[in-house]
């Protein structure tokens, strides 16, 4: 491993290509932590946005008019405003309103940090789209298929679990993949409120080392790797869930 790091030092010395994150232990640690933060933020947002999508789509089918109206308003709000503005809104407007408390050293510190607010804001943003995606999937399940299940004596819960949901998931998968990939890319906005994710630490490194060109390139390829791995996983899921011969 040492020889690899030394090779990057040599690359810097002889060709002026400065990839300090490979030979400088401090930069390497910073970059790695940024990468992990991006992954953690992405996973948190993916999971919670799926949960929001699921609950929202369910609430939209509900008997209560106010529940449907609330979900509709929520979707409009998050789809029709820029995610960066949403992020600022949560961090400064909502986060700023909450009471501060004294930490161990006696300093006043906010109840929730920037990571928390980024997770909340981006989950709601992704979730708003997921509600629409899930709803379209549920609506695509043929009424006749549900009736066939009813006529076999399945209960409402069983119909949802064994027929409606598995089909709706398959119908939503393509759109869901797109939205999930977008959400991962959007986590880079958390930079704006100081979450030490990939973009944030890269910016720190290039302002210290003055290697903007190299860091930009490395940053871009890091996202290619991250999103590529995710797309690969999604495709495997799509393949595992495919219905041979369906719709042909």
């Amino acid at each position: 491993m040492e020889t690899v790091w030394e090779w990057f030092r040599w690359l810097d010395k002889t060709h002026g290509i400065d990839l300090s994150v490979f030979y400088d232990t401090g930069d390497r640690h910073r970059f790695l932590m940024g990468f992990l933060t991006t992954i953690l933020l992405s996973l948190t947002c993916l999971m919670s946005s799926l949960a929001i999508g699921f609950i929202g789509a369910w609430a939209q089918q509900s008997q209560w008019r106010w529940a449907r109206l609330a979900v509709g308003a929520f979707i409009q709000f998050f789809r029709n405003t820029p995610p960066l503005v949403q992020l600022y809104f949560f961090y400064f407007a909502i986060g700023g309103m909450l009471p501060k408390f004294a930490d161990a050293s006696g300093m006043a510190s906010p109840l929730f940090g920037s990571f928390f607010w980024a997770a909340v804001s981006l989950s709601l943003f992704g979730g708003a789209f997921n509600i629409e995606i899930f709803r379209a999937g549920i609506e695509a399940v043929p009424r006749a298929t549900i009736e066939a299940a009813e006529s076999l004596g399945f209960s409402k819960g069983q119909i949802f679990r064994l027929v409606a949901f598995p089909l709706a998931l398959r119908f939503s998968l393509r759109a869901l993949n797109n939205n999930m990939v977008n959400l991962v890319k959007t986590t880079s906005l958390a930079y704006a409120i100081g979450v030490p994710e990939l973009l944030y630490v890269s910016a720190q490194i290039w302002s210290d080392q003055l290697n903007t060109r190299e860091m930009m390139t490395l940053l871009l390829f890091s996202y290619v790797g991250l999103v590529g791995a995710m797309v690969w996983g999604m495709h495997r899921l799509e393949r595992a869930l495919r219905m041979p011969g369906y719709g042909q």
Partner: protein
Amino acid sequence: MTWTADQPIVKIFDVHKSFGKTEVLKGVSMDVAAGEVVCIIGPSGSGKSTLLRCINALAVIDQGSVQVEGQEVHDPDLDQLALRRKVGMVFQQYNLFPHKTALQNVMMAPLHVLGEKRGDVEARARELMRKVRLAGKENHYPGELSGGQQQRVAIARSLAMRPDIMLFDEVTAALDPETVKEVLVTIRDLALEGMTCILVTHEMGFAREVADHVYFTDHGVIVEHGPPEILFSQPQDPRTKEFLSHVL
């Protein structure tokens, strides 16, 4: 009052049913004895499907009574799931579960609705696949089967619940002429075994061959009924004559 097999297994009396302002069933009565094969014929839109759907409570009647094995189907206290275990239904569009293989389609209801053991259910499902002449197609998905094959899986799926009564709603109407026969043969075998069958059909030759009793419906009423040899050769009502002159 308990039901015994010498009483009608299905007893329909003066059933009325409207969708919005249009009355689709205008006082329909019909008795079906256990083991009997009954065919319902009539122009499209005359309420045949609606009548079938009242028997397993997929449709709710406005007035009158439907009894299956002496139990009032539209009694609010009736165990609807228990009723549907007794009454199987096969649809024009097969309505198989596209995300499950043929065998899984047949096994699902006994596993989840009856809660039977997987080993028993699988043995029975394989036996049923043989019975509908589909041995070897167990692991095919519905999308990989022809219309006639899918329809026979649908019949096996219903039979797996060991129903007392089978409802068939124009089950050959969506099939190619060559595959109609294979489905009709399957139904005829069932009829010969003594299954109570109520069929809506446009296959007059089949009705004449297997039916014990034929009902002709038009505009939500039963115009005329009788044994096939009489109804087909000496229709009394001008509407029956008119209809038969088009289809025979």
